[in-house]
């Protein structure tokens, strides 16, 4: 344990400035920061813009200022593993990708140690590091490409086009106003008056029950003709509750009301979150 905290401290002192110097956006290899938290006496690790094992490797290569075509595998592997250990120590969720890379590095290191096969053909004497170097360079190219996209997007955000024009295309249905709704309600109320001659039993339907009924009816059918909904009401009081529950669901943005033509039927629909 003592040894590990020692490692952490060494890492920290080896690289005290890099975290602060990184500008607001730096795509290629931002530095991780290891800062002591004085209150809890613990080290805090921020991985900065480390994305994956390739980024960590590139960072280590840069930090050591070594030639990417001649990576000192043993040294870099050691440093890589030290970082990995530190990350695990600090309970950072180390992605599996980091472990895969660690295994590849260790394998590479061992291959470097093996003497070359004296009988091998010249072409087979390829540097075992080549594959890794190519991957790193490829990765670096795409990091640069990402930087380019970032600046393009920034420029493009400074360019404005005109605001959207209201056309029939983007507004196919006439939105329903409160008065349209009231008109429909009034019609039904009038019809109701004619039909129901006497009320025998007083039925108590609460707002909550009515909202639930409305919800279920809309959900099951996808949409609901409001006239039909109102007509189901058994009493004037129930009708009022029904009307209020429609308003309530509209207010809560659970349903929307649409009317395809002026004075046409009003349909309630479930609002799909955008």
């Amino acid at each position: 344990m003592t040894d590990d905290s020692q490692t952490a401290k060494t890492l920290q002192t080896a690289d005290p400035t890099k975290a602060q110097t990184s500008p607001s956006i730096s795509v290629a290899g931002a530095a991780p920061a290891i800062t002591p938290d004085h209150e809890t006496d613990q080290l805090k690790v921020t991985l900065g813009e480390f994305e994956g094992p390739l980024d960590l490797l590139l960072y280590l290569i840069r930090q050591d200022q070594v030639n990417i075509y001649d990576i000192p595998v043993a040294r870099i592997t050691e440093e890589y593993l030290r970082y990995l250990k530190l990350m695990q120590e600090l309970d950072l969720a180390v992605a599996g990708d980091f472990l895969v890379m660690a295994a590849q590095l260790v394998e590479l290191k061992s291959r470097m140690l093996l003497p070359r096969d004296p009988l091998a053909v010249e072409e087979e004497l390829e540097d075992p590091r080549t594959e890794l170097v190519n991957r790193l360079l490829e990765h670096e190219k795409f990091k640069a490409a990402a930087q380019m996209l970032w600046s393009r997007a920034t420029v493009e955000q400074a360019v404005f086009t005109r605001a959207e024009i209201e056309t029939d295309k983007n507004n196919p249905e006439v939105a329903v106003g409160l008065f349209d709704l009231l008109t429909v309600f009034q019609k039904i109320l009038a019809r109701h008056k004619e039909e129901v001659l006497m009320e025998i039993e007083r039925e108590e339907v609460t707002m909550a029950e009515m909202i639930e009924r409305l919800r279920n009816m809309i959900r099951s059918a996808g949409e609901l003709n409001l006239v039909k909904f109102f007509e189901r009401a058994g009493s004037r009081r129930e009708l009022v509750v029904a009307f209020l529950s429609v308003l309530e669901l509209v207010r809560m943005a659970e349903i929307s009301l649409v009317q395809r033509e002026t004075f046409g039927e009003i349909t309630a629909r479930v609002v799909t979150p955008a």
Partner: protein
Amino acid sequence: MAEHSQTAAELEPEAIEAVEADDEVQGMREISATELKGITESLIFVADEPIDSKSIAKVLRVDQSAVDEAVQSLVEDYAERSGGLHLREIAGGWQISTRAEHHEHVRAYLKSKPSAKLSLASLETLAVIAYKQPVTVPEILEIRGVQSPSAIKTLLDKRLIVAKGRKETVGRPMMYGTSKEFLIQFGLKDLSELPSIEDFQDLAGDLANE
């Protein structure tokens, strides 16, 4: 009038009636160059997305080459005037927009802030997709060295990338490519306008010299 009836006679019998009934449409086919230029500008202005000369020609029932000429002439006008607006080619169409250099004032008026940028992971994933498309998730992983499920989801949500079918290989993974929205948001005429990925070689090569 003589010329008119000759034209009508050359048309399909059932079309004659329509043409005669709608003299205005007949007139539309003989739009003067000046008028065509004006109409073209109007259409580019009202179009929601960059509009190509083919679509304009179709609406106006004129030759596409005539529209192309009109657009070129408009581009020259805009450049010469060097006013607040810009006529430019984006995503294979034409669009009128404000000039980038006026963004501060436009933003101040609109009270708009630059919208949330893509995360580094998303940008990198987008770069890989833009240059390697159509590309599968395992191929993206190979280059980035790290899984990017949330980045791909973000890019799909923002409609910057689209699924481009499945690759006929083990597991038939989904392939992704960039969308028209990508071209629009990054101000590109088409994909060929992206700098070659090899141009970034030099940048990457710096590592060797350090």
